[in-house]
């Protein structure tokens, strides 16, 4: 009895020790900065000197800050890439799932951008988008279309970034769908076929509902990721683009915090963004709960 409880206690200690490193990491590198920045958002901190408490002043300023509105709009606008990416990825996955020859090769090809460094990809696309010598415009030239200078035009800079983001994320989304598709039992399709449904109908009534959890996962993670989009614009349009047309919220936060000595204000934006992501994700989970059903 005594020995057993001793062993039990020992295991408890070991268990605690094992989770200690990540726990410490979480406390020091996530929780502490988070609380610190929430506190900072109520101050006029410049990132160097002392912090003076100014209540909701920063949040009030956000309300009338044109550039913040622009950055917020840009961030939301660039999320248009999410449905596009999902559609393309699902189509590709459906195609590959039919067992076309060379499936593995295609999977690799589509996955290469996913594992490439985002910075390298951004630099490469920046060259491709160059108005004079860029690959994109040279390609358009073949069809007699003279393309714009993508990154220097406020109307094309966002679509250009969306195209790149879709291209970059395609392989990852496709692979998730491919896995989901392969786990759908053939028997459903056979049953549907007996009932006279095939083609689009069987896709709509079987495939789409069956991959629903994956779709949900992709949408949630993409919206969270999309809200935090930064590296692309930092490299491709280091000043925020023509008329600030490609600046994202995180980009603006970074500019305020590290360029203009307004750490407190930047913290307020970060808190706003955090709350925004939290609320959107919460709504999505609620909606998912309502619509989900079990197929047994």
């Amino acid at each position: 009895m005594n020995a057993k409880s001793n062993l039990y206690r020992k295991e408890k200690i070991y268990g605690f020790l094992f989770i200690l490193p990540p726990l410490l990491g979480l406390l020091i590198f996530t929780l502490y900065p988070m609380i610190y920045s929430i506190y900072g958002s109520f101050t006029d901190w410049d990132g160097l000197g002392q912090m003076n408490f100014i209540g909701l002043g920063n949040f009030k300023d956000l309300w009338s800050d044109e550039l913040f509105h622009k950055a917020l709009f840009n961030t939301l606008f660039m999320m248009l890439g999410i449905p596009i990416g999902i559609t393309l990825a699902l189509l590709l996955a459906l195609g590959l799932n039919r067992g076309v020859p060379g499936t593995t090769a295609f999977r690799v090809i589509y996955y290469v951008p996913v594992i490439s460094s985002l910075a390298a990809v951004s630099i490469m696309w920046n060259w491709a988008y160059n108005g004079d010598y860029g690959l994109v415009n040279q390609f358009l030239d073949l069809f007699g279309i003279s393309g714009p200078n993508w990154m220097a035009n406020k109307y094309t800079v966002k679509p250009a970034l969306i195209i790149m983001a879709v291209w970059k994320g395609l392989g990852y989304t496709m692979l998730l769908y491919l896995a989901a598709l392969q786990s759908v039992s053939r028997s459903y399709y056979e049953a549907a076929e007996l009932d006279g449904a095939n083609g689009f109908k069987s896709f709509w009534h079987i495939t789409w509902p069956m991959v629903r959890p994956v779709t949900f996962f992709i949408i949630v993670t993409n919206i969270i990721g999309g809200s935090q989009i930064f590296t692309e614009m930092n490299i491709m349009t280091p000043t925020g683009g023509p008329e600030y047309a490609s600046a994202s919220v995180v980009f603006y936060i970074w500019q305020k915090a590290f360029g203009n000595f307004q750490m407190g204000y930047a913290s307020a934006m970060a808190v706003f963004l955090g709350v925004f992501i939290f609320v959107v994700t919460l709504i999505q989970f609620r909606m998912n709960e309502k619509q989900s059903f079990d197929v047994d």
Partner: protein
Amino acid sequence: MLKKKGWFTLLSLVLMVSVVLTGCGGKNNASSGGNSGSEATANAGSKDSKETKNLTFMFRGGTDEQKAYEGVVKKYEADHPNVKVKIVVTAADQYATKLKASITGNSVPDVFYFESGDLKAYVNSGVLLDLTSYVEKNPNIDLNNIWKYGVDLYRYDGSMAGQGNLYGMPKDVGPFALGYNKTMFEAAGIPLPDKDKPYTWDEFIKVAQQLTIDKDGDGKLDQFGAGFNVQWALPSFVWSNGADWLDATKTKVTIDDPKFIEALQFFADMQLKYGITPSTEQAQTLDTYQRWMKGEMAFFPVGPWDMSTYEKLPFDYDLIPYPAGSTGKSATWTGSLGIGASAKTKHPDEAVDLINYLTASKEGMEALVKAKVQIPNLMDMAKEWAADTTTKPANKEEFLQVVNEYGRVLPGHYTYNAEWYNLFYTDIQPVLDGKVTPEEYVKAEQPKMQKLLDKAVEQEAKSKK
């Protein structure tokens, strides 16, 4: 089961936990106890041999520049066996973030680069060491032999930048002179520009128009008069027309001045009316830069940092003053980057000594100039360097004239932050595209910029408390 593997498990756990804890311990020290990781290494070093003093030096630059500075630091170490310098280097675009993070994290490097525009903020928050007394008592530093323009950039008296105590030394000065393609002029039979008398705006347009040609007759221009990036070249036109972004008190945005509007109109007209530059959509720096290097452009701004690249150009180029507006005088932007020391450094004497070696010593300067990444900081050395007309560009003297006579610092330098100034360029594209007139633009933009400037002034007042 557990007993058998107990030893191993315990050992690995102890190892893991101790690694994590020491990591955190170091972090805690850094945030509570003044200096930094460099302090820890400094202490460790002093145990081994009493004299060794450790400094960290953080800087940025392209690969050529990194190599040049690393070489100079090595040389410094060889000359000063009691000092060890740990180098921290980043690419230019990551530098500001890294430096500001190290300040927030209370681990400021002993010696580091900083932007002249950030001077006030750093001084007011006690980040920068006041170098004045150290420089005065150091017999090796002769401030009179260093560009006054450069030194003054790092002076601050508590209210106005440009005067008072010294908080940094110029790493270099970067006079942004105007270059022209000499070979192209000769081929077209146009008299070469006078290196002592600037073109008027009208003359400049006329010459540039003569050199804007469709060579192969395909209806597309393949040679242009000029290519100017608005952010770096517009100040030249505004200043030479007697206008500026700020008034003398540095608290009022003055872009609605008619002289300013005139200069902005002229800048936009170079494309819209006279067509001497590639269309604005293509006027990205990279494109005009490439056109210049391919010999497709008559006039193009040239900085000293480009000299090593331009050596291999397939044509001859030289420097002239910028075309002058209504003041009759040229003006241009001259950049600079400062080297300062942390106010909390353990070894201020050695830190200042290193700064001196990098900015004001003959040995250090010679090595850096040889690498062709900058012009000499020392005026006597610069004169000698400019007198050598056998290397390109022949009229290097122009660089020195820019620094001594007509170079200026960007308006953001004078204010607590440059947000108000940057906004001007964020919104300017429609003006260059001819969709908004300069007059409408400055009217709409002035209040927005003023609001940001007011905020910066207010911030500055707070930071002094």
